[in-house]
């Protein structure tokens, strides 16, 4: 089975991200960057599937040169091949452009199953997985909290507000996995040493026939950003005999219970 996992290198989410005041883009230079923690679950899910079914995992990433670190980490975890699409013209790409680039790279590579996180931990658009599926013309199975695959059919538990739905799709397909779908392994030191000799394709948009798709020609532009408003003070429930009910009603209105 050929599994492709999308990964992204992002500013360490444990640090406070800074926006460039001119471009309104997240500053990625001079900050600690890590593989998006959400993507570690995708890599682990892919590795588990090929360990059970045979086949191999290819990781694909679009981003600055430093994105190579995320690809290398996935290779050290056990992926067989890496692809990095990097080009200055892609800086500031929107979700659709990102999906187009990734989809072309995935198509070129060939796949039975594409695994992604549900969304990136820096951009949070949450639409790239579905867009990739649409561009590849395969089913998108999203928010999977468990993934099973017998090599021809994908079966997942899809996270819902109430619990989960069981969803099946035939391959090829795209699946997005939630955090907690598994416990990502650490790259082993032998894996780290071995990653250097694994194949790594470095592509530009023109290699994918996507010239002129970059950030400058993106279908959206960020015109302004504003800090999130301060949170309003919470409501204090004073018990006049009905406090429990009011708290419960409040939680129910927020769909917490």
């Amino acid at each position: 089975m050929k599994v492709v996992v999308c990964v992204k290198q992002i500013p360490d989410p444990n640090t406070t991200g800074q926006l460039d005041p001119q471009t309104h883009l997240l500053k990625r230079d001079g900050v600690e960057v890590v593989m998006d923690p959400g993507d570690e679950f995708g890599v682990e899910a892919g590795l588990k599937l090929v360990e059970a079914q045979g086949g191999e995992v290819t990781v694909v990433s679009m981003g600055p040169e430093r994105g190579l670190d995320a690809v290398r980490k996935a290779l050290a975890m056990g992926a067989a091949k890496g692809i990095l699409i990097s080009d200055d013209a892609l800086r500031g790409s929107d979700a659709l452009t990102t999906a187009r680039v990734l989809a072309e790279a995935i198509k070129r590579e060939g796949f039975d199953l594409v695994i992604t996180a549900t969304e990136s931990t820096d951009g949070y658009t949450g639409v790239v997985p579905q867009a990739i599926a649409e561009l590849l013309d395969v089913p998108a199975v999203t928010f999977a909290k468990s993934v099973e695959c017998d090599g021809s059919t994908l079966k997942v538990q899809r996270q819902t507000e109430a619990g989960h739905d069981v969803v099946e799709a035939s391959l090829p397909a795209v699946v997005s996995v939630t955090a907690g779908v598994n416990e990502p392994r650490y790259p082993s030191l032998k894996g780290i040493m071995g990653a250097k000799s694994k194949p790594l394709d470095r592509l530009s948009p023109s290699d994918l026939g996507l010239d002129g798709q970059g950030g400058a020609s993106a279908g959206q532009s960020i015109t302004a950003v504003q800090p999130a408003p301060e949170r309003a003070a919470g409501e204090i429930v004073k018990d006049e005999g009905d406090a429990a009910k009011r708290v419960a009603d409040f939680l129910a209105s927020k769909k917490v219970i």
Partner: protein
Amino acid sequence: MTEARRAAPPFSATDPYLLDDQLSDDERLVRDTVRAFVRDRVLPTIGEHFEKGTFPRELMAEVAELGLLGMHLKGHGCAGTSATAYGVACEEMEAGDSAVRSFISVQGSLAMFPIWKFGSDEQKERWLPQMAAGKVIGCFGLTEPDAGSDPATMRTHARRDGDDWILDGTKMWITNGSIADIAVIWANTDSGIRGFIVERGMRGFGARDVTRKLSLRASVTSELTLEGVRVPNGSMLPEVSGLRGPLSCLTEARFGIAWGTMGAARACFEAARDYSMQRRAFGKPIASFQLTQEKLVDMATALLHGRLVAHRLGVLKDSRGVTPEQVSIAKRSNVRIAIDIARTARTVLGANGITLEYPVVRHMNNLESVLTYEGTEEVHTLVIGKAITGEDAFS
């Protein structure tokens, strides 16, 4: 100026000179991996292990799976990383606790290294893959109750008896002693000091833990007794005789200590910095007081100095090799830096600094052992003094 300078990255208190930029991609990934492991798996329980005086044995299978055991050795199931990567791993492990760093130091540098360097092909094949996989735990027997800094006076001896050797003696302060499956025992023979691989369960071989320790409490420290232990000639390390054998192992391990102590120091510094920014006195954070800032600046500068030494030593070891004297300078200096940082950090935390809620007093107590083991501060001083003056203060 013809070339635009790259924008300066934000100031990093723990790496102001961007030393980590000198690491290779592999070495950075080793750093990140071990750091994540320590954060996720070691730190949540290490305080409790320290308090109870128990070794975190449950983590050792994962440590082996990561490939940390004998990581810098080539072949025989070992990862074969650079010496610098080994140093980085020691730094991150000791940011957790000196006990877990000691475990990998002893397994990799003191038990596996002599077999890898001085062992026969049979010994290497038999032991190293299993030791790299954590299935066989090793320890290193050199120090004795009455022979520490002067190992040449060791009483443990081995005599030939037909095709075998008979070992008698006592070894003391042996890390991993009672949990070890094999011990590399150094013993006097008619032809000088030789190393022997002694297996757990051999008749006459026993281990008893040292209890009531107030330092390295999450590490196993034992006394080994050898009473007429019969080992086959094939258990003797064939390729070395004399003190050069054990001392070369110690040079390996001390290299890791020079790095490891910087992990403990960093953990203490970070705890002090974070605490000083949260804790308020006289209406403002104590970090705003000049005396506290001076402490933080002194700690950060000392940490930088120690890390510079460790990184340079790593570059030297990977490029041309290091001498025992070069390693002595780093071991002596960096343990002292770490212990001073730990003590200063303790004062920043005030009374909280003595509790296991924070890592500081645990590191501070551990470093008392690190100051003494693998060559006391005094012995390293005299090793360096001899290198500087040509005068041997030992004799």
